[in-house]
């Protein structure tokens, strides 16, 4: 039965206009893609999607087919044609049978979809959670904080806007918000879950295919909702372990004069009022933890690639790239900025 269904899905899918248009535009796999699952949950959803699209396409074709037939075959009349009142006199049993049959068919198809949907929902909930990784996500206007929990307190570490997770191992995300409602969504891995202030939600998922997947806040959350992205790096356990180990370390000590100056600037100006760097006196939590900033691919929640140039431009005037962001512009001299960036780039 499943095989037949899958065969039918494969046979009819090209009919779906979306696929045709997608082909016409030459779209290929992109950083966020519902239909390119990288884990069991997204895959379950994709199977349900395929079934639903096939059923819907058939219904759509049937309704339009009937309509085209009517337009093609039925006689024409103009207003001089007297209205046909004979239908009041005799029951239209043929039409009644057709309409009744169509209604019954619709109900059966809908029931099929309801059952498929509920079964998929159940499959999503039944992810095995053995040996799961626990990550607490806290959403802020407009960035993500991630705290990797561990039974050993010394193993807990915090990072921001970029998660690494081991392939094949389930992850339990606890989701919280510090301000307004946000929504956590990495399309290639799972559906979304809202982060509502005053509540904690959980999302369980597993990624099987290594790669870098992009996620984005999906609930409108204010001025910079557009630039509240996160990256999920899925890698083998062998690659994940050293990364996690690295994240647990305090920031490396500056090893030259310029970096030394950069760190002093960081601690002596407004930077330290919002950001934390483990191993220094900076421990504020209002902005992302920067202990291992240099290990991330992007800055400002996916707004810019993490290059020294971008970092300098960002620090000079964040409002140019992310108007409304809570980080103010700085009035450091070129020299000072260079030193600060040199220090930040060393935080690997």
């Amino acid at each position, binding site marked *: 039965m499943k095989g037949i269904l899958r065969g039918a899905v494969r046979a009819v899918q090209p009919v779906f206009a979306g696929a045709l248009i997608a082909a016409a535009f030459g779209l290929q796999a992109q950083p966020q*893609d519902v239909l390119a699952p990288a884990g069991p949950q997204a895959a379950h959803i994709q199977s349900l999607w395929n079934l639903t699209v096939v059923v819907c396409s058939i*219904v759509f074709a049937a309704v339009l087919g009937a309509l085209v037939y009517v*337009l093609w075959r039925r*006689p024409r009349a103009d207003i001089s044609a007297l209205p046909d009142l004979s239908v*009041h006199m005799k029951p239209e049993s043929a039409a009644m049978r057709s309409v009744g049959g169509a209604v019954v068919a619709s109900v059966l198809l809908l029931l099929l979809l*309801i059952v498929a949907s509920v079964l998929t929902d159940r499959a999503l909930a039944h992810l095995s959670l053995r040996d799961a990784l626990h990550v607490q996500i806290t959403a802020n206007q407009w960035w993500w904080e991630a705290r990797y929990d561990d039974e050993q307190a010394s193993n807990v570490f915090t990072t921001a806007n970029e998660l690494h997770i081991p392939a094949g191992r389930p992850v339990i995300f606890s989701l919280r918000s510090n301000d307004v409602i946000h929504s956590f969504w990495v*399309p290639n891995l799972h559906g979304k879950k809202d982060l509502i202030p005053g509540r904690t939600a959980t999302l369980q998922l597993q990624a099987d295919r290594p790669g870098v997947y992009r996620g984005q806040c999906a609930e409108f*959350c*204010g001025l910079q909702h557009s630039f509240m992205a996160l990256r999920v790096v899925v890698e083998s356990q062998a690659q994940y372990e050293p990364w996690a180990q690295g994240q647990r370390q305090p920031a490396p000590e500056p090893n030259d004069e310029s970096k030394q100056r950069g760190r002093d600037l960081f601690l002596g100006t407004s930077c330290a009022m919002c950001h934390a760097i483990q191993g220094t006196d900076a421990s504020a939590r209002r902005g992302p933890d920067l202990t291992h900033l240099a290990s991330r691919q992007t800055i400002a929640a996916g707004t810019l690639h993490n290059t020294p140039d971008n970092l300098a431009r960002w620090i000079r005037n964040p409002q140019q790239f992310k108007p409304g962001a809570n980080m103010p512009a700085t009035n450091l001299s070129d020299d000072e900025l260079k030193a600060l960036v040199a220090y930040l780039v060393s935080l690997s």
Partner: protein
Amino acid sequence: MIQVQDLEPAPAPRPPGNAVPPTQADRDALEHTWRDPQGFVGWFSAINHKTISKRFLLTTFGFFVAGGLIAVAMRLQLMRPANGLIGPDLYNQLFSMHGTTMMFLFAVPVMQAISIYLIPLMVGARSVAFPRMNAYAYWVFLFGGLMLYAAFLLNIGPDAGWFSYVPLAGPEYAPGKRVDFWAQLVTFTELSALLEAIVIITTVFKLRAPGMALNRIPLFVWAMLVTAFMVLFAMPSVMLASTGLIMDRLVGTHFYNPAQNGDALLWQHLFWFFGHPEVYLIFIPGLGFLSAIIPTFARRPIFGYTAMVLSLIATAFLSFGLWVHHMFATNLPEVGKSFFTAASMLIAVPSAVQIFCWIATLWTGRLNLKLPMLFVLAFFFILVLGGLTGVILASVPLDLQVHDTYFVVAHLHYVLLGGAVFPLAGAVYYWYPKFTGRLMNERLGRWNFWLFFIGFNLAFFPMHLLGLKGMTRRVYTYPAEMGWGMLNFTATMGALLIGASVMLFAINLWRSRTRGQPAGPDPWGGGTLEWATASPPSAVNFEAIPVVYGRDPVWETADHPPSRPEAVAGLATTAREQLVTSVLDAQPDHRQQFPQPTPWPFISAGATSALFIGSIFTPWAVVWGAVPVAIALTIWFWPRHDETAVNVALEKSA
């Protein structure tokens, strides 16, 4: 000391009644009695339902154009990645204004506006019930809309979306007055909508022509009756919600503040308990238009009248049971999710029943493919596609992926434009000759249709794909590396085509007023009562109220036995007298004297608006603002000697 003479004025002679068929003297007297007064004050005193309806329609069309221009601005910003045309602050105002305008200032009121013109004509009445309240509802609506746009032009337009989720719309994250204007706009429009619902329900229940039993009411009237009941049940929920929001913002209550044991999710439940029925109270009038247009152009009565009525009612009931499908991502218990999935999918059944009945009507009819029918055919294409993506959204797992993405933007535009705006455009082409006495230009109309149809699909189909590619809603821009540029560019081109088509439509509306081909009373050969009167109808609609023996009275006149009465004789020609009939069978019940034109509904609406707008700035406005409202309403309802005298004369003679 009560003066007895005041209660019992000297008996006046009974005003003369109309003859059947009405004489020229009857016509002249009735026209004089029922028409709106002339002059400057007269303009503000108008209460004739056709006058109010035309103003209402024009106003909603103005808001539609404004909301559309805002949409074009958004599309230009999204046309290419990392575009710098519009910044986030303005963009957030734009999409909030677009949604608010289209939902509160266009889609719901335009349906009520057109129905207060058509319903009295379709049920054979001389007026809507409560004509002064009808005028008041219009003015309140106008003032509310003007307030919102004044705020927007002053850069204090709402910026938390048309749904204003808390806490983003709460006092902490939306300081300033922007969201307050939004919340008060809700108060304005909902007040107007509730009053219109009362007008519509009472008109349909009590003012139908004798003989028009419930099972003979035109389907459009049924649709509007169902819609009006839905308004009564849905709107209080959003008024409650928005009042709570205003109080949180203005006087420091904590309904929605989790830090003080309030709840952010409470807002979503209240809002969507209104918000989902809202969609259907836009869609159901659209179904009504189709049920009016299709039989006329298929040259036969509708197939499955009873099933159609029951489907409308079933849709209305079910629509209150599926609001949670807007909240699937908020961590719900499993049982709840399954229930709302099932309810959300099964609401497709009554819509399917109607679609099948229309197809059956066409299948067994003879087709007259005039302009309104083109829009009906487009409905089948667009709405069915939108309905099917709705089935996708009803499924929890699928919704978790596409919720809050452009897939939903595509879906809701397919449903709302396909289900309501295309039928509405068809309805305007269909009834414009009734409103003005002239047909709209067919050539321009066909250009309008094809530009609209092609532009619509170009604009919104790619959005399905954008959603699947992860483009979330309400983003003011996106990086080039996301690969969304091409599809967005296509969508923007489609939006521009829609803009061009709306411009053609406006030109057509304007030019056809004077240059259109004269229509005569019944240009399409329709069967319902509005086609039995002149185009445009006289101030009184029907000089003699018709007696109804079937569902399509105009079609069924031919085979009347001569002994049956065709119309009602003896209603006053020099007083505003209307026949009131029973709810079920429309048996004549009594005669009702209708009120005279007066500027006080206009003045009362002004006072009400001052109260609403004042309370944005200080809670004390609720206190001092109530004084002018009370004074204006008192004068509005104060009985006048001469009117009382006529009333008594009519009662005594009956």
